[in-house]
């Protein structure tokens, strides 16, 4: 019986800018169980990274955050900075996209890992370094003892990312947030890193929030998926449903627009237009300008994330039943392209 360890409810994040208040995240809700892998999928402007940074409390002071983030019965947004610092790194750890800039170039890798450990455990430096070496070994870095004395620039991209993973798990966190962990890496290295991530997460019993735009990566790792668009969650379901039984036109469009590795298919079916700017959001559903199923209601009323015919599957679309009725939802974009 898996318990719920994280519950995000109606999270909203706004940034004041020259052009007005930009609401990067507009009411996102999801939950995370122990040892579960939740993939948050979205493109630029979807707000996926910002929502993760909100969890970690890494947003600039000017950010306006409302809503609720409950970590094991504690409300994160109400925490004192001191308490926040305790859980950050200890209970919730983060792996960033670019390993080169996430590590301090003037300290050795071993020192940085040891520092991460000593931030949450009162031990001697030697003990912490020993733990660091153990972690480096766990993530598959050969000759861990020697490599711990190297500097970040002496590591390759893949190894650096492994070191970041080691840094994330060194305190046995409950949740690991991986923000596009493999986007900057080559595909062969990506495979290694993802494998490592799956292994270590099991070994420390952590849940993972995997933020990505790559549906292939999601297919390999995730249990549940949250699709975000223009700052909101638009579909939330189990991983098989995303590929076999999507209910959101955007999801269907995404699936139809990516070329398949295992078949040389015919024409690609893109989604017309581009993700909207958060300053210039359309009225009603933000996807309506690009949606082939758009109806009048879509342009006036923004849909909420509501239940569908399938269990554990919510979608934010007025016309989801049309998507459900179609045997191959990617077709809805095909006919639209022909008519245009």
């Amino acid at each position, binding site marked *: 019986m898996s318990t719920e360890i994280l519950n995000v409810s109606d999270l909203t994040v706004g940034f004041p800018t020259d052009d007005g208040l930009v609401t990067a995240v507009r009411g996102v809700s999801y939950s995370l169980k122990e040892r579960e892998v939740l993939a948050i999928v979205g493109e630029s402007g979807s707000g996926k990274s910002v929502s993760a940074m909100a969890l970690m409390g890494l947003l600039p002071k000017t950010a306006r955050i409302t809503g609720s983030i409950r970590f094991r019965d504690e409300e994160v947004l109400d925490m004192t900075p001191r308490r926040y610092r305790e859980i950050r790194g200890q209970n919730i750890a983060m792996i960033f996209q670019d390993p080169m800039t996430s590590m301090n170039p003037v300290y050795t890798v071993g020192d940085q890992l040891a520092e991460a450990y000593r931030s949450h455990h009162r031990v001697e430096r030697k003990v912490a370094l020993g733990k660091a070496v153990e972690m480096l070994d766990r993530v598959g870095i050969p000759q861990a003892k020697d490599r711990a004395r190297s500097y970040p620039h002496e590591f390759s991209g893949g190894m650096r990312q492994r070191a970041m993973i080691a840094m994330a798990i060194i305190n046995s966190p409950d949740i690991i947030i991986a923000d596009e962990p493999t986007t900057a890496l080559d595909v062969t290295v990506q495979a290694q890193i993802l*494998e490592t991530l799956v292994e270590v997460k099991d070994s420390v019993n952590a849940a993972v929030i995997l933020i990505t735009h790559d549906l292939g990566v999601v297919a*390999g790792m995730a249990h549940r998926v949250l699709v975000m668009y223009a700052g909101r969650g638009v579909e939330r379901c189990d991983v098989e449903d995303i*590929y076999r039984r999507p209910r959101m036109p955007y999801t269907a469009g995404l699936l139809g627009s990516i070329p*398949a590795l*295992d078949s040389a298919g015919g024409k690609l079916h893109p989604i017309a237009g581009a993700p909207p700017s958060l300053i210039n959001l359309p009225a009603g559903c933000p996807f309506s300008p690009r949606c082939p199923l758009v109806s009048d209601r879509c342009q006036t009323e923004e849909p909420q994330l509501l239940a569908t015919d399938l269990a554990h599957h919510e979608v934010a679309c007025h016309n989801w039943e049309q998507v459900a009725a179609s045997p191959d939802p990617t077709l809805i974009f095909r006919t639209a392209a022909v008519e245009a």
Partner: protein
Amino acid sequence: MTQADDTAATSSHLLEVENLVKEFPVKGGGLIRRTVGAVQAVSDVSFHLDSGETLGLVGESGCGKSTTGRAVLQLHKPTSGSVRYNGRELTTLSQKEMRPVRRDLQIVFQDPYASLNPKMPVNDIVGEPMRVHGIRGPQVMDRVADLLERVGLNPEHGNRYPHEFSGGQRQRVGVARALALDPKIIILDEPVSALDVSVQAGIVNLLEELQGQLGLAYLFIAHDLSVIRHISDRVAVMYLGRIVEIGTRTEVYEQSSHPYTQALLSSAPIADPDKERARERIVLEGDVPSPVDPPSGCRFRTRCWKAQDICATETPELVDRGTGHPVACHFAEVREVV
């Protein structure tokens, strides 16, 4: 014309690249910096391209594919080797002689944000190739409007600046600029890698349509195996400056024979949870060696599970070893990985 050969044939291809080498000197410190080594970015690359076809050049970072593209265009002067366009040798041309040739060989870059001059309005950007080649007057503006519409943009927005457009639109501007002089060959250097997934398909479709209508030849450089498979007629796989396998799309994807190609194909994720979780993955050990000091013989041998002594002493040639298409491996063997 058989697709598989690229050993010296007398058939006339639109573009013929033979034994292309490009090295970048590594300078040491000191008052006058001496050359202490060389980055062997491209080492003995040969291929050909015909009009109307797309050759996909795929490989990971550091394999030399971008450098190859630029060396073909003489943006980097090749260290040695030959590049022949319509039979004419390009490597020996001076800048001045090369200029008119540049009308036929164009390039689209990866980064839609850096490939357009932020201080120039889009009209000027697309019209510049024409002005550079002495075409002036109202016909320039007419053609610019034409080109913008052709790539799916509204010509009325032509007086706006690049930062006002989205990434996908900027890339379309880049394509329009490349088309301005009616080229015959376009080198596409990772044209969709920096774009959102849902936008990539639009650009790929646009490129395919243009190819169909104008008979363009594409050298499509990318690291995304799915996109390459979709758009290419023939595919060349590069590793550390060399082509390790080259063939038709079907041959490379369904009958891959080089261990690196197989590893590459097995690592690329498939958007299907059942298939993805059931796949047999070939996970490579170690890291890519440095191009300053590549391994002797076969450069892939340090990470290859088939490596034997001969791999270190004898560099495998890119020839057909019974698999139907050229492979550079002493132990080439067809294996289905996708």
